[in-house]
Structure formats: structure tokens, C-alpha cells
């Protein structure tokens, strides 16, 4: 049987993007484009009628926004919901409304022109501001401006779309995504946006497959084209061939069956048949994802990637802002744990400084950058400590390669604790500190590093990349990014056994944890906790509940003596067959 790899290798009609929400869907394209509004500045002859039209458009806009606002309050955090509240207030702004009326009467211009011109004046002031957040605001106000104008032109809001369509758009605003999600959209594909774009977050929370950041999908599809969206691998196939359609229809049906079966696992522990419990934690990118975490039946948050806050704010959050975010997450997940990873900046993530590095992945990133910028690091540590009063927060250091880095970080943490004591702030006295093991040097030295920390977490993405000396984003060599290379497996085994010798908790985060093929092997290697994207937790749970720890131990032993990746994969596939475990195939 063909695999995804084969299908995509041969496909000429594929577009690659970022896999933002898992799932597979085949459907018709609904092109959601922001039509450029044609503004008429024609003369108004009947002033009363113009005034009535304006009133009506404002009323309709308010109705629409009230709906958006109520969904927003349900689904998003307060700060973002506040954007919509301000938009609603604009519709009641007495100064603005008076200006509209006066200008229509005085200039005898169409209301749509006056609305456009008057609001644009304010936006221009905002755009000229030195403050980036004010500039951003000008963009938010576009939404309200266009809404009033559209309603003046009596164009109905586009959200009434054919049921079961796949929305393809250049970019989706929060309001668009929320409203579209209410009309049975089957999938989202966008030109722009990353894992933390609104479309991505909302898709994940609603379990709608999504591929974002395709750059130019809107240029390649037409309304009513059939497309296949693969939210597991981040591919879109346009007007698929018969072979592709058959392949994905089968995958889709399989997935539907699987999802039906998954429901029942939600509240059950991930227990092997012989009673070994594997704790399943969620990886969280943005605080808005907390709702899915809570409903996914996760044992807690195993990795909160705080650098995403920078990405969202495009500036460093203040201590207070961070305290608020961390405290909120800590309370929501309580009594389960929240593992906060210190800003992992550098590499491909968030360019902080305009310093040219010939080799950023081997450069100033993770803990290295934090130790070079103690003020930034301390702000985060203080915020994490201040938020730790629920006693369920742990703090994790990224990209550690030497013991000295841990010692230095711990000194800084102690300094922060002393400061907070002097300032009479309370915090968790038994605050746990851990590290990511993702640099080969750290893997080799696990025993020694373990003595310095409370817990360790293996980050497979970087570990494999550094171990195999391969950039997985580079097509020329990405074949060498082998999750199942014996070198990788032996390294993981080494880390686990060494950490266990010092009785330190060892967990696993990174994409490999969510790979159903990897799970039996990882369990057999001795992993007791896995952290993955919340929507993949039920899949992992299902596999674990089919396993027998004793059998997986034997599998791990066999795999450890293999000399090629092919042999390892072969052994695992045989394992699934012999124990009649139906795999999620390579779906995830």
C-alpha cells in the first residue's frame, strides 16, 4: 500500500504549508476574499434617507458585532475580547456619529464616503504613532469601518456559506474565523499565518483540519475547486487525481471511525494492559489553547512555549503581563502541573537582536541568549515565581549544553527569590527546575546534569537535528532526519536510564511523542510521561491502552540492537501486527 510519503512525492498538484490543526478533509473551496469595497462619493439628494440608511447600517453592524463579541468571550481571553468591546463602543461614539451626520448634511456626500473618510482620519493618526500597538489598532479599526460600509451597501455578511465548504483565504481576522466556524466549515487553508494565528488556534479548538502559511494558495484555487486538506502533514492537494481521492477517502473514513472510538477514552487513564501508567501532557503554544487542554483529558501542561507570547505581542511582555498569563494558566490547569519553558529565542524563532549569525541554530539561542540578557531572563523568572502560589508551576530551561549553564541559571533564580522575599512577595518554596535535553552534549552528560535539576524533558525535534547534523527544513538532506535512527534510539535510552539512576523524572516532548509508531518503543524504553499537542492526546491514549509494557520492553530491546532505521521501523510495524493493534496508520 502507498504511504503519504509516496502520494506527496509524486503529486504535482500539492501545496505545502504549516500543519495547524490535525485531520483530513476533502471538499469544495469557498474562497473567502476581502473584496475591495468600492466607495461612492456621489451626491446625496435626500438627506433624511441617507441618515436613515446610516442608522440602519449602524444597527446591523451592532447586531453582528454583538454576536461576535459573545462568541469571543466564550472562546478567547479577556484582552482579545476587549478589542471587540471597543469596536462596539465605536458604533455608539457620540462625537463620531455627530461628525458623520454633520458631514453628510454639509458636504452632501454619500454616507459610505463620509464613514470611510472620517474613520480613516483617526486611523492615519494611529498609523503615524511611534508605538507599535497603536499602529496595530488602526488595523483593528479597519474591521469596524468595513463592516459599516458593507452594511450601508446592503451587502450581507459573507458568513452564510455553503455548508461543508473548506474556507480558503489570504488571512482570517479573529472575527472572521469565529463566525465562519459557526457555519459548518470543514477546513481552513490560508496564505498567511503560523501555528499561533487565530485561524490555527480556533481550528484546533474546534477540531477542524487546517493548513496555514501556504503563501499563495489563493492564487492556485478557484471557487468550487475540490481540494484535500491534510492537517497532519500540512499539505493541500488541488483537484486531486482519482488515486489521491481514493487514498484520502480511505484515510478519512478510517479517521472518522477512529474518532468515534476515541471519545470513550477521554476520562480514562493511559494505562497499559499490565497496569503501567503513562502520563500524557499537553504542549501549549498560546494561552487560548487552554480550553482544548482541559477537554482533552491531559494530565497537565508538559510544555508551555512562552516565546509565543513575544510572537503575539511582537515585544517583550512586562513582568506584570507575564504574571497574569502564567497565573491564569496555572489556575485553569490546577491541580495539574504547568511546565513553563523559559523563552527559547534564537535559531529560527523570533529574531531578538539584529545580529547576523552565520549559523543561528548553533548560535545564541535558548539558555545561552537568556544568560547573555539577564534583565530579560530575570523578568520572566520573577513573573513565574510570582505566579507560582498554586504550587503547580515548574520551570524549564531550553537548549542546555553544559552544567555551568544550569548553575548560572539557578544562581539567577536564587537572586530573584531573594528580591521577591525582600519585596514581601510569596512564591512556591519548592519551585521545581528542569531542563530540556536536546543538545547531544547534554544527552551524553545526563547523569551529571540530573543531579542539578528536579526533572528533565527530551526535546526530540532539536535532539534529532543536532544528533544527525541535519536541518530538517532543508529538502536536500531532510531524509537524514530519522526519528527511528538507532543513533537516536540509543541516545534516548541513554538519557532515560541515566536520569532514572538519579531518580529524576524524565518526560518527552517534541513531535515524536505524538507519533503513534513511536509510542510503543518509547514506552518500552522506559518513558513514563509524554507531552504532545492536545488534540493528539486521545490518539496516543488509545495506543497505550492496547499495549503490554512487558512486550514493549522486548520491542525496545530488539530495536536497540538494530543498525539501521529501516530495521527499527520494520520491527515496530511487526509489533503492531503481532499484537493486532490497529494503528492510526501514519496518519499522525
Amino acid at each position, binding site marked *: 500500500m502507498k504511504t503519504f510519503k509516496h502520494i506527496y512525492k509524486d503529486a504535482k498538484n500539492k501545496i505545502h504549508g504549516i500543519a495547524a490543526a490535525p485531520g483530513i478533509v476533502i471538499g469544495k473551496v469557498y474562497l473567502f476574499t476581502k473584496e475591495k469595497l468600492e466607495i461612492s462619493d456621489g451626491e446625496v439628494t435626500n438627506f433624511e434617507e441617507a441618515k436613515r440608511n446610516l442608522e440602519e447600517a449602524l444597527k446591523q453592524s451592532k447586531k453582528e458585532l454583538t454576536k461576535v463579541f459573545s462568541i469571543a468571550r466564550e472562546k478567547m481571553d479577556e*484582552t482579545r475580547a*476587549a*478589542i471587540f*468591546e*471597543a469596536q462596539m*463602543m*465605536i458604533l455608539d*461614539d*457620540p*462625537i*463620531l456619529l455627530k461628525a458623520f451626520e454633520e458631514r453628510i448634511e454639509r458636504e452632501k456626500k454619500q454616507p459610505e464616503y463620509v464613514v470611510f473618510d472620517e*474613520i480613516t482620519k*483617526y486611523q492615519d*493618526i*494611529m498609523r503615524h*504613532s*511611534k*508605538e507599535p*500597538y*497603536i499602529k496595530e*489598532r488602526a488595523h483593528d*479599526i479597519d474591521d469596524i469601518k468595513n463592516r459599516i460600509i458593507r452594511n450601508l451597501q446592503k451587502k450581507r455578511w459573507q458568513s452564510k456559506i455553503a455548508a461543508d465548504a473548506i474556507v480558503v483565504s489570504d488571512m482570517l481576522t479573529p472575527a472572521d474565523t469565529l463566525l465562519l466556524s459557526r457555519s459548518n466549515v470543514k477546513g481552513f487553508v490560508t496564505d498567511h499565518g503560523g501555528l499561533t494565528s487565530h485561524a490555527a488556534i480556533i481550528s484546533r479548538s474546534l477540531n477542524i483540519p487546517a493548513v496555514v502559511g501556504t503563501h499563495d494558495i489563493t492564487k492556485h484555487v478557484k471557487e468550487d475547486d475540490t481540494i484535500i486538506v491534510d492537517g497532519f502533514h500540512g499539505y493541500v492537494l488541488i483537484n486531486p487525481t482519482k488515486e489521491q481521492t481514493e487514498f484520502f477517502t480511505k484515510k478519512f473514513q478510517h479517521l472518522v471511525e477512529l474518532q468515534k472510538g476515541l471519545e470513550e477514552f477521554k476520562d480514562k487513564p493511559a494505562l497499559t494492559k499490565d497496569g503501567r501508567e503513562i502520563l500524557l501532557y499537553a504542549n501549549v503554544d498560546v494561552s487560548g489553547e487552554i480550553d482544548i487542554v482541559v477537554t482533552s483529558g491531559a494530565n497537565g501542561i508538559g510544555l508551555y512555549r512562552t516565546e509565543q507570547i513575544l510572537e503575539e505581542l511582537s515585544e517583550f511582555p*512586562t*513582568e*506584570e*503581563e507575564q*504574571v497574569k498569563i502564567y497565573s491564569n494558566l496555572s489556575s485553569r490547569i490546577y491541580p495539574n502541573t504547568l511546565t513553563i519553558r523559559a523563552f527559547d529565542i534564537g535559531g529560527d524563532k523570533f529574531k531578538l537582536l539584529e545580529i547576523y549569525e552565520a549559523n543561528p541554530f548553533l548560535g545564541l539561542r535558548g539558555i545561552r541568549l537568556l544568560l547573555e540578557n539577564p534583565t530579560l531572563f530575570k523578568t520572566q523568572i520573577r513573573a513565574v515565581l510570582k505566579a507560582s502560589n498554586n504550587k503547580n508551576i515548574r520551570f524549564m530551561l531550553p537548549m542546555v549544553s553544559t552544567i555551568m549553564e544550569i548553575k548560572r541559571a539557578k544562581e539567577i533564580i536564587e537572586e530573584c527569590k531573594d528580591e521577591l522575599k525582600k519585596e514581601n512577595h510569596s512564591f512556591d518554596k519548592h519551585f521545581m527546575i528542569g531542563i530540556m535535553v536536546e543538545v547531544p552534549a547534554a544527552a551524553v552528560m545526563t547523569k551529571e546534569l540530573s543531579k542539578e535539576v528536579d526533572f528533565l524533558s527530551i526535546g526530540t525535534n532539536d535532539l534529532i537535528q543536532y544528533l544527525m547534523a541535519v536541518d530538517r527544513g532543508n529538502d536536500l538532506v531532510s531524509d537524514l532526519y530519522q526519528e527511528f535512527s538507532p543513533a537516536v534510539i540509543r541516545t534516548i535510552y541513554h538519557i532515560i536510564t541515566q536520569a532514572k539512576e538519579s531518580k529524576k523524572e524524565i518526560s518527552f516532548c517534541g513531535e515524536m511523542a505524538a507519533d503513534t509508531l513511536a509510542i510503543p518503543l518509547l514506552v518500552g524504553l522506559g518513558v513514563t510521561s509524554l507531552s504532545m499537542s492536545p488534540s493528539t492526546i486521545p490518539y496516543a491514549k488509545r495506543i497505550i491502552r492496547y499495549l503490554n509494557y512487558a512486550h514493549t520492553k522486548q520491542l525496545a530491546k530488539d530495536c536497540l540492537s538494530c543498525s539501521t532505521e529501516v530495521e527499527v521501523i520494520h520491527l515496530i510495524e511487526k509489533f503492531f501486527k503481532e499484537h493486532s493493534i490497529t494503528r492510526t496508520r501514519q496518519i499522525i
Partner: protein
Amino acid sequence: MIEKIVKIKNKAGLHTRPAATIVKLASKYKCEFFIAKDGLNINGKSIIGVMTLAAETGSELILTFEGEDEQLASDEITDFFNRGFDEP
């Protein structure tokens, strides 16, 4: 007419939420209310106007109140600024 000079005290500055609160407070009163900063004079009862003000922490604004209930309005709104918008 009452004129008050206030300082932005909270860390985040005059962002959307306090802007909305200021407008809500101001709209309870009959008097005119203006906020001036860097030569820009904004009607304090207009949310879209207040939203154009980029007032980061530490910056100074001039508030003016004029009308029959100017004293009450000035007391309540100045107090809201002085409390740092009830934010850290």
C-alpha cells in the same frame, strides 16, 4: 473650567480597556471633557479618539473639564488616572 495634569501610572499604558472605561465614565457627565497630549486634543467622550492616544507609562496628559458638573467629572476621572487604571 478645570484643568488637571495626570501621569500614566500603569505599566501597559493607556490601552484599549482603560480607554473604554474613561469614555464610559465621561459619558455619565454633561460637561465637556478633553484630553490633550503632544498637541493632540481629543474629545474624552469619543472612544475612537481616545484610542488614537499613544500614552505609555510615565507620559503626561492634560485633562480639561467644562460644564455644570465639571467638579464631579474631574474628581472621578482624575482619580481613575491616579489609581493607574486599577492596573499594575
